[in-house]
């Protein structure tokens, strides 16, 4: 049998980390990525770093998308990245939601692969995920 599988879709875990319940953006992103031919493992609300690590591991995710709207991103996103590294996972983490420009550098320094601001187009969202998945893992 020929070696299939070169065109396998990217697998992306999407989650809300913490208590914040704003999921409009994350749901829109889920559809954007599906429409870009990706497989989205949508974990939804109230996830912890530990639950996201487990999902990323079991689902062998190519990327993780986190949505944050409550100003907790400077605490939560680095915690997430560290939890992944502790589990020997190098899955790239993309943060979206309300992240002021001034915080972007700090997040990138903490190991976040990319930050998607509000108003990013569908093409930008999909391309950011593709780029992160290509560099990461």
């Amino acid at each position: 049998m020929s070696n299939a599988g070169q065109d396998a879709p990217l697998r992306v875990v999407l989650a809300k980390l913490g208590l914040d319940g704003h999921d409009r953006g994350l749901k829109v992103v889920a559809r954007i990525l599906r429409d870009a031919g990706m497989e989205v493992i949508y974990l939804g609300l109230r996830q912890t770093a530990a639950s996201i690590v487990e999902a990323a591991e079991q689902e062998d995710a190519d990327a993780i998308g986190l949505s944050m709207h409550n100003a907790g991103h400077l605490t939560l996103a680095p915690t997430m990245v560290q939890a992944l590294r502790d589990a020997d996972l190098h899955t790239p983490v993309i943060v979206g939601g309300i992240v002021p420009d001034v915080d972007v550098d700090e997040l990138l320094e903490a190991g976040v692969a990319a930050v998607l601001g509000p108003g990013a187009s569908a093409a930008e969202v999909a391309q950011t995920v593709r780029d992160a998945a290509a560099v990461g893992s």
Partner: protein
Amino acid sequence: MAANDRTDSSSEAHAAYRAAYEKASLRDVPFETMSGVPVDPVYGEAPYPGQYPYTRGVYPSMYRSRLWTMRMFAGFGTATDTNTRFKEILRNGGTGLSTAFDMPTLMGRDSNSHWALGEVGRAGVAVDTLADMEDLFADIDLSGVSTSMTINGPAAIVMAMYIAVAEKNGVARKDLAGTIQNDIFKEYQAQKEYIYPPRPSVRIVTDMLRFTSAEMPRWHPVSISGYHIREAGSTAAQELAFTLANGFAYVEAAVAAGIDVDEFAGRLSFFFNSHSDFFEEIGKFRAARRIWARWMKERYGATSERSMLCRFHTQTAGVSLTAQQPENNIARVAIQALAGALGGTQSLHTDSFDEALALPSEKAARIALRTQQVVAHETGVANVADPLGGSHYVEWMTDEMERQAEAIFTHLEELGSGSILEGVYMGIENGYFVGEIADAAYRFEREVNDGRRIIVGVNEFTDGNEDDNSELLRIGHEVEELQLKRLAEVKQRRDDEAVARALAEVTAAAASPETNMMPPILDAVGTYATLEEVVMAMESVFGTYVEKAII
């Protein structure tokens, strides 16, 4: 009032309107245009403002008697910080206090919960125990203020804390005035700040309706909120329909619990979003009043006029604010605020232009308030009630909003085999609400993406997007540390046995559907049981709610 050929001044309805208007006290300002032309309090045809079905407004004189309340929602940091802010508002002549809570408090978690990491005191004030509530309202005479508290899942506990603070200071609960949001249905549909499954949650709401009906005549126990439904991406008609359906569902739940409709319906209030499509919003507000009045009277048999009035608070659409060229948001907010005023709102919160980026800075919050002051004092819209009534387009839009809403009510009735309450439960369980909202949100995003819908600064007119926006409000970690210390101190000096006994009573009441939850919760908060402890005491009976992801 000068007769004019645009008003049917000979009719009985007009005479009745006239009589009602004459009775109202008016603000001491000239009711004339900027150029000095005197204007009537209303134009056009009956039914007039203050007349069933209230399409044109809930009061005859509307803003001639009283401008809408300019209620600005604020709060962050520790309870003491917010208390300072409150006192400042009161010193400046304000009488309304509006409280925002931080995310852990909204979710019924204490500041030391692992869930609270990074969130303590960030988007509002942290309340763990009665001690925080005492700090929040220290040296404020609660008999002389009206307090609005935006909280839902743990609303009963926070309201109990407020009562406890008042009574400690010698203010009786019957003298307390205010509003607690306490609208749990929209949490499952949109905002997602729920704790327990829907049915036990609604039982708590009906307990609060019964308790406030009997003991707190000046208190608004539920503010039925479409705001968050719209923010989650719904259309205007969905916002209207889901919100009113939730209202009907509370009415059905309370009536089923044996409370007379006129005992509580007059204290229900509403909270809507004002978005950028000007005429659609105005049509939505007008339709809301008409639908509510008709359903309350005809379907639920309300006889008191107050039960039929859809009185509402409005907030401009946070979701419409762009991070690109944020100053443009000032224009958006102004237009949305104007729609709220023309739609006849009772109070208004205007968003700060920088809210797409962070919590509002002081300057941005001031501009937001100034924006609605400009609308109120400079545009002349406050002179005439329902000034757009009679416009072919606005009347059509009002009818269209109503038609769409009625179609949704019909669907919910079918889902619930004739009951809106059961239909709402079913719609939550089978994902109808979240599915409809997600579809609408995605449709809108696609249109923006495809360029079929222009958002200034986002997909068109993007010159200037590079501007620096680094002047943002930041909140440090000190708040979290202070709050944790405070919580540990309170736990140190309270009587743990009394706490345990009181919590056991809460659990026992939860397990007994006939018992009102409020008295045992009041006892529990009085022992300085924490918010999360009381939440957990009920959770052991009620269980938790986990949403099935519907995309």
